[in-house]
């Protein structure tokens, strides 16, 4: 009996298992509805009230299946929403932002609860969740956490930025939450179908967010390129899924992996299937040569969106990458590990080298994100729990430092109202020592200097790779890091070692609570992960071993 048929026959939906997604999605819908209420107090209250009723109805309808705690949590969240909606109805953007933060926080709570419940055994086994399309395992949970952290910081950093650029429209927060929903779903997708759907959910929202500055040609171009190439690569992914389905008779990742495990070299289907899946996922994580969209899209998109893309999308895509390749297709490693190894090496080098000649900082960081994708791939290639843990840890580390770096750029763009080039940073160390210091911290972390998250991340992946007998990749990483250090250093040089040009001297450096909080959080993350990471490493390692 097929999985779908089974789902039809027993329509018990394990709400608890997908509660994080539900929270995000629900928050997104709620913000959207409240936004349509347009600041009208009564309408807002009504919307919130209806949402409350809806949640209650859901709880009642599926009561017996849900663990006792869930309705209470959800109800409490709904009440909070109502209160907030009433309090902030005059400031809908702030309401959206607060609700988004709460949504991300709720998602994290739900994920934490899941983790706790799963170790307790009270959660449904992964195999049967939504007909096996969703897995609640460590990778999913850890990635959800990363995505939510990224989401919160993005909201904090984005608020003033969007205000300043006058593109602070209501649908921003719903889109953010929806794309995050896609990401968390992608992270937990156990079925290729779910992978595809999740990829589309997150991408569609991001396409729109990239083009959020409607009057800005760069933003529009970014969205257009992202969209067209995203769709193009989705087709490859989809074709790969279809071929897997044809070859294995199933789209369930684990089952397909088992079915394909025995295939031999001439089986063109199998090779094409694996290859096209690889293309689709490599596009999402931006491995060379599927990276070419990254600089253009990152550069054109509004900076907070760029940060979110760099941090969260990467984490989610790697989670899927891990699940499909390191987990599902592990038995076929002899086919794809060399290929991915070559791609990873090319990615590390090309990302670093191409960044060297960039003057636009956003573009430089975009290329640097390419290089970092290569580093993270090293953990995946180790094909071990250590490696999985390392990749996840790396992605969290990369999330905090890239969010921080893009966040600083966002602040600076508010100051100068233009794209920031290296020369624009001259003398920043004297004018705004704290901001410059933080930027330097993020850059040093990206460069992998000890005492920062970036170092621990690199240590994790290199260690995993060496453990797995890969010596060439760490050497490539070293080369790449040296080249990369050059351009990070160049920025620090400009900030601290050059004098501020006269035309910049009069422009004040803007400050806002949100960005201050966001940057501080990112900086704290960088330092904590760099100096006392054992707790997070522990979490990542447990996540890697915890199959749900």
């Amino acid at each position, binding site marked *: 009996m097929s999985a779908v048929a089974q789902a039809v026959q027993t329509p018990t939906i394990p709400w608890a298992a997908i509660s994080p997604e539900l929270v995000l999605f629900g928050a997104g819908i709620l913000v959207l509805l409240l936004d349509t209420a347009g600041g009208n107090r009564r309408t807002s209250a009504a919307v919130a009230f209806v949402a409350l009723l809806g949640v209650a109805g859901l709880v009642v309808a599926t009561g017996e299946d849900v663990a006792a705690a869930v309705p209470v949590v959800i109800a409490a969240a709904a009440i909070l929403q109502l209160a907030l909606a009433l309090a902030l109805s005059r400031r809908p953007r702030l309401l959206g932002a607060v609700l988004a933060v709460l949504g991300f926080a709720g998602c994290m709570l739900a994920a934490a609860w899941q983790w706790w419940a799963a170790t307790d055994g009270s959660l449904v086994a992964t195999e049967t969740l939504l007909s096996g399309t969703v897995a609640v395992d460590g990778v999913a949970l850890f990635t959800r956490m990363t995505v939510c952290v990224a989401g919160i910081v993005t909201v904090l950093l984005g608020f003033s930025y969007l205000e300043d650029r006058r593109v602070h429209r209501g649908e921003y927060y719903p889109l953010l939450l929806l794309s995050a929903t896609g990401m968390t779903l992608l992270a937990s997708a156990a079925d290729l179908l779910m992978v595809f759907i999740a990829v589309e959910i997150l991408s569609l929202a991001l396409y729109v967010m990239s083009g959020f500055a409607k009057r800005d040609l760069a933003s529009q171009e970014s969205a*257009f*390129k992202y969209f*067209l*190439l995203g769709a*193009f*690569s989705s087709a*490859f992914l989809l074709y790969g899924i279809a071929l897997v389905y044809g070859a294995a008779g199933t789209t369930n990742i684990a089952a397909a992996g088992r079915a394909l495990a025995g295939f031999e*070299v001439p089986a*063109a289907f199998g*090779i*094409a299937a*694996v*290859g*096209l899946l*690889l*293309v689709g996922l*490599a*596009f999402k994580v931006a491995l*060379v*040569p*599927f990276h*070419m*969209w990254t*600089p*253009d899209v990152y550069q054109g998109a509004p900076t907070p969106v760029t940060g979110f893309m760099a941090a969260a999308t990467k984490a989610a895509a790697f989670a899927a990458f891990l699940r499909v390749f390191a987990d599902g297709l592990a038995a076929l490693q*002899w*086919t*794809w590990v*060399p*290929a991915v*190894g*070559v*791609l990873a*090496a090319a990615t590390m080098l*090309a990302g670093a*080298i*191409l*960044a*060297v*000649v960039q003057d636009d900082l956003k573009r430089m960081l975009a290329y640097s994100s390419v290089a970092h994708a290569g580093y993270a791939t090293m953990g995946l290639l180790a094909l071990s729990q250590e490696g999985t843990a390392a990749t996840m840890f790396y992605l969290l580390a990369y999330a905090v430092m890239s969010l921080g770096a893009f966040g600083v750029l966002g602040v600076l763009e508010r100051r100068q109202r233009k794209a920031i080039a290296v020369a624009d940073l001259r003398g920043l160390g004297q004018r705004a020592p704290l901001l410059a210091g933080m930027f330097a911290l993020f850059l040093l972390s990206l460069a992998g200097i000890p005492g920062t998250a970036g170092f621990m991340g690199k240590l994790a992946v290199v260690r995993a790779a060496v453990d797995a*007998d*890969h*010596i*060439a*990749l760490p050497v490539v990483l070293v080369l790449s890091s040296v*080249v990369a250090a*050059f351009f990070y250093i160049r920025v620090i040089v400009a900030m601290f070692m050059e004098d501020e040009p006269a035309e910049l001297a009069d422009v004040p450096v803007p400050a806002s609570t949100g960005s201050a909080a966001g940057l501080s959080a990112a900086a704290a993350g960088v330092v904590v992960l760099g100096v006392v990471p054992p707790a997070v490493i522990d979490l990542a390692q447990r996540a890697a071993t915890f199959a749900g």
Partner: protein
Amino acid sequence: MMAVSALAQASIVTAPAGSPAAWAWLLPVVPALSAGVLLLGGRRLGRGAGWLAVAISAITLGMAGWLVTWLAARPPGQRRVTHTVADWISAGELEVGWAVLVDPLSAAMLLLVTGVGTLIHLYSIGYMAGDERFSRFFGYLNLFLAAMLVLVLGESLLVLFVGWELVGLCSYLLIGFWFDERPNASAAKKAFVVNRVGDVGFLVAMFVVFGAVGSLSLTQVLPAADTVAGGLVVAVGVLLLLGATGKSAQIPLYVWLPDAMAGPTPVSALIHAATMVTAGVYLVARMSPWYAQVPGVGMLVAAIGAATALVAALIACAQLDLKRILAYSTISQLGYMFMAVGVGAYGAGVFHLLTHGFFKALLFLAAGAVMHAMGEHTDIRVMGGLARAMPVTAVTAGLATLAIAGFPLTAGFFSKERILAATADTDGGAALLVVGLIAAALTAFYMARWFWLIFMGRPRWGRGAAPIPADAGRSTAPPPPRDLHPHEAGWTMAVPLVLLAVGSAAGGLLTVGAEHGLLAQWLAPSVVAFESSAHLIGHGLLQAIAITLALAGLAAGAWRYRAGPVATSPASAPVVGFARDAFRVDALLRAAVVTPGRWLAEGAVWVDTHVIDGAVNGAARLTRGLAQGGRQLQTGLVRGYALAVLVGAVVVLVLLARTNLTAAVFGALGAP
């Protein structure tokens, strides 16, 4: 063939507690402390600084005397004592202590150093009076004394080397004492650097010794000579010789000494005539058991000595500067000493060392007095007739001139004769003997020239100055002022002159008595002398020849310069000019060493900037180039990106399909 003397070296014993030898370490410490005081706070002492230094020097003389008396009272076999004060360096197996070795050889040197040192300290009070760095000068002098005593007393080669280097430092400081003038500073640096070249030999010799013996302590090194492989002994001998040629200004490393005359004259007397420059001789004598193993190396020492004696004497004949003449004379006399120690006549060598210490110090001091009188002029062509104005100086200097020329019964006569006799008694010493005799004659000639042009004849200064022949020299030094009134300096300068003159005259007493002379007998426990069966010429006849040559040289010098400087005849002009330029050795060295060295340095810089930095910058440029290339691909056209995706897909498929191939490539890069 020479054979090792049957007289075995006395063994080295530890100094009895409380004995003078156990306190010998104070000898260098006292002047060192005094030097510290003088250098740090001497300015406040004013003229007292000089007297303090003199007192300290006298104290060391007293201590040395006490020590030597004590030593002399011991039986000859017990006259080599050591005393260890403290550990110094213990790195791994290397253990060197601060220890002194008192034996007849060091005792003789002690007396010379402290004795002449004290006299020159005293002389300097007058000579340096009024100098703005008066106290510093005496600080340096005391420091030198300390260093020289370390050199003499060092029980291990390394401690000896410490003294060796420190005297070099003092020499550097004192040559460049009037550093405001660039040439002085350059001369100081040259002295230091050339000495350092020699030091490489000393250093490497120590390495070899340590490798062979496992210790640098003389107590162990000296007796071990006959247990060490012959090749190593030769190496040590030659390397030490290199060191000695540096310090004692022998060919090829003598070039620094003439320039060293830039220092104040007492310095020339003390350091560059009487004491420091004899360190090389001392070193060879010290290591006599090793040289005794390899007579061939000894002959090399002697040959270098002989060549130096001759060359320096020739140059001295053409010099015009009163101190330079003495400097070349010193080089030449040191050559004599090398000849002596080279043929194993340590007694003769050390004897000449001592007598030379007296009369050469005296000559320099006299020269200093003359310079004082002449307003610091040094060109002997503008002097003459000074005997009348400065009788004491003239008489004492005359005595010293006779002594150095080997006038019968003077100290120099005895010591030089001993050396010539020793060469005559050496197998294969004929050439040495001939060279030695020629040099002796030349010495008499140039010293007569020196004395005559300065003290005798008509004055060529002041109002009644006699004209100087136009081509007598190419020096363009301005003539001294017309209103000169030369006169004797004060008693502090005269007393040392007189005392040294006594030494120069009576130094020969040291040699009366026993077969090889008192001194040789005294030194016997310290050195391994040679005995030789050769007997080229009867000693009586040799003496006669030497006396004849000395007298002839003196007479020739006096006769030729009886009326002042002599115009060079056109035929001999190139020869004289060549000698006056010291055979252009400096220029040769510059061309052979300094210029290639500069090229090498420039080459190294070129390699740094072009090759190494070039490689670094090249790597950066390559990166940048790659990036620019990659940039071209990033066209901004979405269709191009799609193409990249498609191409990438094909590449991935190929990689997957050709797994074996990929694995081969990847594996080569990867796992071990």
